[in-house]
């Protein structure tokens, strides 16, 4: 019995080691969205391309969409834009854009220069909807199902790998359900 007690420090050290080891390689800046499983917050914004047109959370109803938060002030958004265009054109993904804290003319210039992958783009110059969504750094990409429920969030650039490994499985899963 005494002998066994002597092993306690070893066991404690090994346990602590395993706990710490599990944390290695995890990116602490990736936070899970507080909105997973909840509906997209209610909003009313104008269409970036048609200033007179009011849009609300109904734009997500009916089919699975990606919601991409972007702005012309965000260099990483430029990096991912090509991939978004490819997803929209070749993979048939419906992408809703949220133009976040930006200026309309700059955003329009950007879309005409780099191509427009968005089925529709919401114009959020004050960042109000971005705030309600818990956006803390563009670009962010959400998977929204056909009922307007947030299913996944990716913070950072969307690459082909991110699409294949993170976004596509979620998108396909909810497409099958819907």
């Amino acid at each position, binding site marked *: 019995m005494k002998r066994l007690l002597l092993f306690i420090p070893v066991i404690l050290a090994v346990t602590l080691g395993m706990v710490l080891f599990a944390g290695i390689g995890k990116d*602490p*800046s990736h*936070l*899970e*969205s*507080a*909105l997973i499983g909840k509906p997209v917050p209610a909003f009313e914004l104008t269409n970036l391309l048609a200033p007179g047109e009011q849009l609300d959370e109904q734009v997500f109803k009916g089919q699975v969409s990606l919601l991409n938060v972007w702005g012309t002030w965000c260099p990483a958004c430029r990096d991912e834009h090509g991939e978004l265009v490819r997803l929209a054109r070749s993979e048939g993904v419906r992408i809703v854009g949220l133009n976040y*804290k930006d200026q309309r003319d700059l955003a329009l210039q950007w879309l005409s220069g780099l191509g427009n992958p968005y089925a529709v783009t919401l114009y959020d110059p004050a*960042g109000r909807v971005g*705030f*309600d*969504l*818990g*956006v*803390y*750094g563009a670009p962010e990409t959400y998977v929204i199902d056909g009922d307007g429920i947030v299913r996944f969030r990716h913070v950072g650039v969307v690459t082909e790998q991110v699409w294949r490994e993170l976004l596509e499985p979620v998108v396909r899963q909810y497409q099958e359900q819907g």
Partner: protein
Amino acid sequence: MRNLIFLFILVALLPSSLLAATEVYPLATAEERERFQGLLAELRCPKCQNQNIADSDAPIAQDMRDETYRMVRDGASNEEVFEALIARFGEFVRYKPQFDRRTALLWTTPIIVVLIGLLVVIGTVVRAKRQPQATATLTDEERQRAQQILEDGNPKP
């Protein structure tokens, strides 16, 4: 004279950072101002993760300050402010997470560790006391034998 000017500049610079917050966010009472500052200090910026939103220059921290200000000005309680921000950004933004099932271990680990330490100390003390004193002393017979061995092993010259 030079020292005086220097002192004056120092005094002039000192409270500017303190005043800044109240200038941008005018609140009616000192109590509200204090509560607002307290909230800013206790909310964590999701972007610059080791800063509170009072210290962070990130745009998102600015937005969170604005929202906190709006809520405090409109008479929201601290709990309501926390809830509103946690609903958007998650439990992460609170430096002091609430005690519930998920955070139970987080809050109780220090107490558990202290208790274990106390138990170990008490155990050691009790065992030391219970240790029979007799083993330290010898019976008369043993003493005689020991004496003999000592004498044999160390013969007199």
